Structure formats: C-alpha cells, structure tokens
C-alpha cells in the first residue's frame, strides 16, 4: 500500500504496474470498441463489462483500492446487471439494423468520434504531462478507506446526503408510477376466495357439460340439473338456440319401403 502510494507520487511506474497496465489497457480498448461494434445488445453490454472491470483494476493501480472495488461491485455487478436484465427481456434476436437512415451518417460518426477522441486525448496529455501527484501520501495517511470515509462524513456530508435523497426520490417515484395500488379490502386471501366460492348463488362445482343423452349428442342440448330443470350454463353462449320445425323432425321419405 505505502509502496504503491510512494510510487504513484513519484510519477515513476513500477514493473508490475506497467505490465498490468499494458495487459489491461488494450483489453479495455477492445472492450470499448467491441461495445460499439457488437450488433447484439447483450454482447454490447458484455464488452462494456470488460471495460469496466479493467477500469476497476486501473483504479486499484492508482492507489485507490476502495474506488476500484466499488467500481466493480456497484457498476459492473449491480448496474450493468440491471441493464442486462432489461436487454434480456427485449429478446435475444433484437439486433441493430444495418440500414443507414441518414446518408453518410456512419462516416461522419467515425470522423467526429476520432476527432473528439483526439481532442480529449491531446488535451489530457498536454494538461497532465509532467504533473506530479501531490498530497497522495497525506490523503492515504490513515489508509485509503479511512481517508474516503473522513471526507464523506465531514466535508462532503451534505452533498452526499443530497445525492442519496435524490436517489431515494427517484426510486420511490419509479415505484409509485409503476406500482398498482390495491386496497387492502380488495385483496382476497385464500380463505376469502374459498368463502366466496361457496356463497349462495355461486355454484361451487365444475359446470355441467352440455347434454349427451340417448336422444341427442349435440353440444347445443342443455344439461339437466338434479331436479330436472335444464341449465343454460351448460351450453356455449355462441350457439344459437334453435328449435326444429315439425317439417324438419318428420321423416324425409327417403327410406326404402
């Protein structure tokens, strides 16, 4: 820990740090490029996970182990997981379409992206070239975690509380918007459902099937209740009630005498 801070302050890069950086930096870049290039939304999210993991390790290398681990736990473990959660529900065949809606959009995007990356990169390089980290030793004097805790609970406590209030408001708001409120008396538990089932006026058993008697096998024939009444509930509603006329019921005279 202390050796790490000393090295970071001295702006010299130790062997292990350099090796780790040169292994992970290309991986992080590949992840970023893959995230943009992947057609499938889930693959895209997975490339982003790779980049975030590499970033977490970079934080650890820069003598900030706490923020590195929090990056992995919170961003990679929780937030990207929620992203993935949503993407999975979209369907696994949902891929980007390759049709350009604006002419020359892709070329322009590549050019602008490269230009922006160049601007940011050169700006950062010129701003930070030869700058030595100052005060890292003091900040990490009692340990990285303790240092962050001290700042969070003294200097930035108000900002921190405000942020948490904002997040809580957002979460509660989302729940209020998405949650269908049901009154307590409307909610029926198992006992209430059973009582309603046996209440007078409700027939608790399975509905009788349509009548299949000796005289007919038609689904339009209503079943008989135990007391001999016909029950209309046994016939499907879409079937018209049809009375046969006397002509229809009489013999057609086609039989051979």
């Amino acid at each position, binding site marked *: *820990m202390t*050796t790490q801070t000393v090295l970071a302050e001295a702006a010299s890069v130790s062997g292990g740090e350099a090796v780790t950086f040169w292994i992970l930096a290309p991986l992080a870049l590949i992840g970023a490029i893959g995230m943009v290039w992947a057609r*499938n939304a*889930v*693959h895209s999210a*997975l490339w982003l*996970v790779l980049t975030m*993991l590499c970033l*977490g390790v970079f934080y650890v290398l820069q003598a900030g*182990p*706490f923020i*590195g*681990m*929090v990056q*992995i*736990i919170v961003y*990679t*473990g*929780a937030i990207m*997981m*929620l992203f*993935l*959660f949503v993407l*999975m*529900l979209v369907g*696994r065949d949902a891929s980007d379409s390759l049709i350009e809606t604006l002419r020359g959009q892709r070329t322009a995007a590549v050019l602008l992206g490269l230009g922006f990356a160049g601007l940011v990169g050169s700006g950062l390089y010129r701003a930070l070239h030869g700058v030595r980290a100052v005060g890292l030793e003091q900040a990490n004097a009692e*340990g*990285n*975690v303790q240092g962050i805790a001290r700042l969070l609970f003294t200097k930035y406590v108000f900002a921190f509380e405000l942020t948490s209030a904002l997040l809580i408001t957002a979460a509660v708001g989302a729940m209020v918007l998405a949650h269908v409120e049901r009154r307590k008396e409307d909610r029926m538990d198992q006992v209430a459902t059973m009582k309603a089932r*046996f*209440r*007078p*006026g409700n027939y*608790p058993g399975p509905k009788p099937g349509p009548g299949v008697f000796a005289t007919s096998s038609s689904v339009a024939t209503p079943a008989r209740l135990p007391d001999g009444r016909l029950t209309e509930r046994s016939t499907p509603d879409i079937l018209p009630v049809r009375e046969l006329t006397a002509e229809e019921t009489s013999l057609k005279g086609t039989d051979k005498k």
Partner: protein
Amino acid sequence: MNALYLAQDPTLADFGKDPWWLVLGKIVFAFVFGLLATLLGVWFERRVVGYMQVRPGPNQVGPFGLLQTLADGLKMAFKEDILPRTADKVVFFFAPTISVICAVTSLSVVPFGPMVSIFGHHTPLQVTDVSVAVLVILACSSMGIYGIVLGGWASGSTYPLLGGLRSSAQMISYEVAMGLSIVAVFMTAGTMSTSGIVAAQAHGTRLSLGGWEVAAPGWYAILLLPSFIIFFIATVGETNRAPFDLPEAESELVAGFMTEYSSLKFALFMLSEYVSMVTMSAVTTTLFLGGWRAPAPITTFWAGANSGWWPMLWFFGKVLILVFVFVWLRGTLPRLRYDQFMRFGWKVLLPINLVWILVLSGLRSIEDWQSRDRLLATAIGAGVLLLATLFWPSRRREPRPTLQEQVNSRPHGSFPLPPMDLQVPPSPRTKRVVAEREPANVAAGSDSREV
C-alpha cells in the same frame, strides 16, 4: 508467550514479500483446496442427506460411499455435450467458466492460518491481503451472478431465461443484506482486510462488571449476533442453495439456468456451486467465527494452539461445520415460494439490519462516555424499547368463531354441508366377506369385535 501470539498475526505489511514460487504454491493450494472441497463436498452432502432423510445413497454402498464422486465425475464426463441450436455459442461456452473463476478467486483473500515458516520464509498462510479484501469477496460474488445470468440467457429457451432472471434478482437482493451485515463487522473491527478482521477477533474487550474484569468474547458471531444470522442467511441465498434454490427450482423451472447444460459444462456449474458454498463458509468463518483461531476453551489449556500450522486444523473444522449446516438446511427445509423469498429479503432482513446498525453505531458513539452515563443512556434506550414492546397496540382480532357457529351463521341457500359428526358406515361388502369367513377357533377376547 503473549508476545509470541502477537507475532503470529500477519499485518498488511507482511504481504507482497514472497518469492514467486511461494506465491505460486499458495495460489495452487487455494485452488486445489476449492477443488478437493468440491469432490469431498458432493460425497459429504449426499451421505449426510442420505442419513438425514433415511434414504439410500452413499450411506449404503461402497467403502463409506467414497466412490460416489468418482461415479458422478465419470458420468458427467462421458455424457453427450449438447449445444442447443438457438444458443449463443460463445456466451454459452463462457458462462460456466465465469461462475467457477469468480467462486475460486474469493479464496485468494481468505486467511487459512497465521505466519508460518515455509523453507525459511516467514510468510502468512494466505494468498494475499489488501486493505479492501472483504470488498474483493463481494466483488467476486457479484461477478459470479454473470455466469448464471448469461448461462440462462445464452441457452436460448424460456426456462433457463426465467431461471437466470430469477437468480439475478435474488442475488442482487441478498447481496444488499449481506453487504449491510458486513458493515457491522467493519465498524467493530475498523478494517476491511481479512487478516485484520481475524486479528481483531483475537481478544474481546475487557468489561468491568461490578469490580470484576470480564473478557467479553471476541468472536463477532457472538458480539454481532444479528449480523451473523443475517449474513449466513444471505450467503445461503447468494449461493443458490436450498431452501433458496429458486433459480433451479425443478418443480417450476425444470432446472432453471442449467436446463440446457450437460456434460462438463454442467459439471462446471456444479463445481462453482460447491466451491462457492465452501468459499462462503470460509468467509463466514473469517468474518464472524474468529478465522483460524482456536475456539475458546482450547487456548485456555494449550497456549500454542494459535501458532504454527495448527490453526489450519481449527479453520478447516469451522468450515466443515458450516458446510454441514448448509447440507442440514438442504436436507430439512422445503423451498420457499419466490414472492415469500423476496419479501423475506427486502422486508425482514434489510430493515432489521438497518436498525441493528443504527443501534450498534449508537453504542459505539457512547463508548468513551463515563461508565455511569453510558449505563444510563443504554438503560433509557432499552427501557423505551421495552415500553414500546409492552404497550404496542396489539393487532389481535376477535376470537375466531367455532366451526359450528360458522356453520350456523351461513345464509339460507348455501351449498349443503355434510353433518359435522358424520360417521362413515361400514361398507356392505366388508360385512359380507366377514360373514362368509370361517369362524376362528379362538375364544373371543373382551376387545374383539367385527370389522
């Protein structure tokens, strides 16, 4: 002697000084420990469950049933490796490996023992330790979810997808409870490094009760009992073990995220489950059960119990007991329903945890007061709590009407009920058979009667 103990405790400065072969040896040891624990764990679980549920298993066959794991391994290796047509091939292949890697990586920050001497090198029995070691464990377990979720998604069918979604919701929920119960440990130990937490559990604080100096127990399982209970419940949820094995609930989801997996890929998932069970037991031991330190009565009689290689014995013993508890839970408890499970996590574990942390920080903040003021403050708090419990408006309702009253109060025209004192008359067929039988040639006793 006391100075010798203290010298055994590794500090953060003791790490990172090993030669490369020692580092390699430690890594291989941790890895092999995970694998061996899986091999023995499968056998152990089946044998214990066989005895608990009184059913045939490795408790019946073979030399102590030891060949069970071998048979399982051979069976899995020779099964056909199926790749579903709709599967996402790359992700389908990598998902089980992610699970295994994350489960094994956690073992690297678990302290197996104190400083020992290996070929002249004075080194701690732990692969490595950092100032945020417990967060490394949390990070590994949160990355381990990816294996399950991606396995479910990449299979390209419905049940695995549902299992994957369930598991991600479940593990994220229970990670919150788990993280909050570790907060109490951080507050008490004042460090996040695992070796530091083990060292902090070495000696309890000295309490003076009415003139006597009493050593409070040092284990956080006793000092922070609510945290310990919640943490252990959360680890069961986090490892997808029964009674929380909802992602693979066979009565609802066939086999959940591993429905489409077969052969060695399935074996990897199984491996990751057992390794994470062992890892979580090891982490629980480290955080709450004093790590590699000998349990209380042993150190009283034998001062050297905490030095040299002996602590590994205590450590493995504690891990074994916790693994037994995992198996015990699986053998005895039925699976929870999904909504009950989520309600339990969010509405029971989480609030209790928050209140407990609040109480704990309150107790910690009055630690440097005068002992009289401190007692007064604690007594007032406890009194308020007691009064609130006593005079809390009871939610007890009217006494339930008896069955006969309910029957009498039914409205006219209700569905007819059989009489309450219904006795089933004997079947006439039974009577005939009895009547036709030859009368037995024995004197009828006082209790004999026809059936």
